[in-house]
């Protein structure tokens, strides 16, 4: 049994993902398509929310992946700081744009859902607010990666930012809940989908969640492969210049 850490070897990673990426990518397309088509075409309307309930199949999976992407970046950053595996740092870099888009989808579907339900596109609901804040954290992280030339320095600095940012993102989330409850009294605008969800909704929802997870995985693998090549390109150019 090969050690898990062997996959942190860039060559091994490239060889493995050569066949793994198409598999994951097709699985992602198929599972997501099944989940969303089921959700869009074959679910009944909710007696209270009408057909807007169908937005749940986009909203919940994307929100879930938006948070998971950040957690994955956090873990990858820790691995980079402790074990200095380049692939880990590059995977964190590749995950950030995917996380941004997931956050954006979560926000937009939330707004579109909120409009008919609450009569407004935007509400400073604690959940929406903390997602907006998460979006800002993603932007900062990506901007820092883009600003630094030296790849190892960039990896180090963004990893530390990710660690510190995680703590503050968590604090911001508590702050948002505290603040909004302080003003609005109670969670009348909460997005929590009713306490009892019928299996008619649950089944496509779980499939969509799996699909979004696979989409995330496929895009991160593809992105990491690109970052590994870009990193190698940089190293070769530096080598050329020295020789």
């Amino acid at each position, binding site marked *: 049994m090969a050690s898990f850490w062997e996959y942190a*070897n*860039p060559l091994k990673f490239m060889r493995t993902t050569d066949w793994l990426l198409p598999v994951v990518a097709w699985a992602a397309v198929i599972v997501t398509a099944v989940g969303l088509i089921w959700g869009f075409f074959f679910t009944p309307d909710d007696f209270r929310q009408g057909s807007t309930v169908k937005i749940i199949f986009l909203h919940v999976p994307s929100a879930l992946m938006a948070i998971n992407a950040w957690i994955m970046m956090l873990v990858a950053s820790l691995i980079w700081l402790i074990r200095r595996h*380049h692939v880990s740092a590059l995977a964190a870099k590749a995950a950030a744009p995917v996380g941004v888009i997931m956050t954006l989808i979560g926000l937009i579907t939330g707004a579109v859902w909120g409009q008919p339900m609450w009569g407004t596109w935007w509400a400073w609901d604690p959940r929406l607010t903390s997602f907006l804040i998460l979006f800002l954290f993603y932007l900062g992280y990506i901007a820092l990666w883009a600003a630094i030339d*030296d790849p190892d320095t960039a990896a180090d600095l963004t990893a530390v930012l990710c660690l510190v940012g995680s703590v503050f993102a968590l604090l911001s989330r508590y702050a948002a809940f505290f603040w909004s409850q302080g003003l609005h009294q109670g969670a009348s605008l909460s997005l929590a989908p009713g306490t009892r969800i019928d299996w008619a909704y649950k089944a496509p929802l779980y499939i969509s969640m799996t699909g979004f997870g696979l989409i995330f995985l496929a895009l991160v693998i593809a992105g990491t492969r690109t970052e590994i090549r870009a990193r*190698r390109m940089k*190293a070769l150019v*530096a*080598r050329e210049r*020295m020789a």
Partner: protein
Amino acid sequence: MTLHVHDLTCARGGLPVLEGVSFTLAPGEALILRGPNGCGKTTLLRTIAGLQPSIAGEIEAPSDSIAYAAHADGIKAVLSVTENLQFWAETFGTASVEAAIDQMNLRALATRPAQTLSAGQKRRLGLARLLVTGRPIWALDEPTVSLDTDSVALFAGVVRAHLEQGGMALIATHINLGLPEAHVLDLSAYKARLPEEGAGGFDEAFL
């Protein structure tokens, strides 16, 4: 009290530039580092000063014994010459700046704000800072940039006085300092070979 560097490999931007650098510096000795631009003189000095980690090898020196001086002098323009020196003296825990002011011939300028100094005068102030650190090993990166011949001679005299008191100096420079007793180390002999491709190293794709 010696500075002992053994089989040192240091890197710039993730790529090794120098490898196998070994030398010993005993009290009273100076070592001049030579080599073409970009050969890693600055990298070596920064590594020895502890500003960046080495890739391999050992640097043996008593802790807090190295004073590093780079191209930039770390001078604050709005502070006077004395204030500048006093700050570094207090930071390094040494008492007096008067001796340093006299040695670098800065007495007449002592109360002038540093922004009114000429480039050469600033450089002298930067070197006076070395004196107030009270540290035995000096690691100097191009210390004579923008000094005129007289000032270079003055500088050589200061280094010599430092050596006579049992100090050590490690100097990267292009010009002749007038320190005939100093040893010379040509760094182009230690240029790092790039790792072989396909050698199977863990991160070989990046080297």
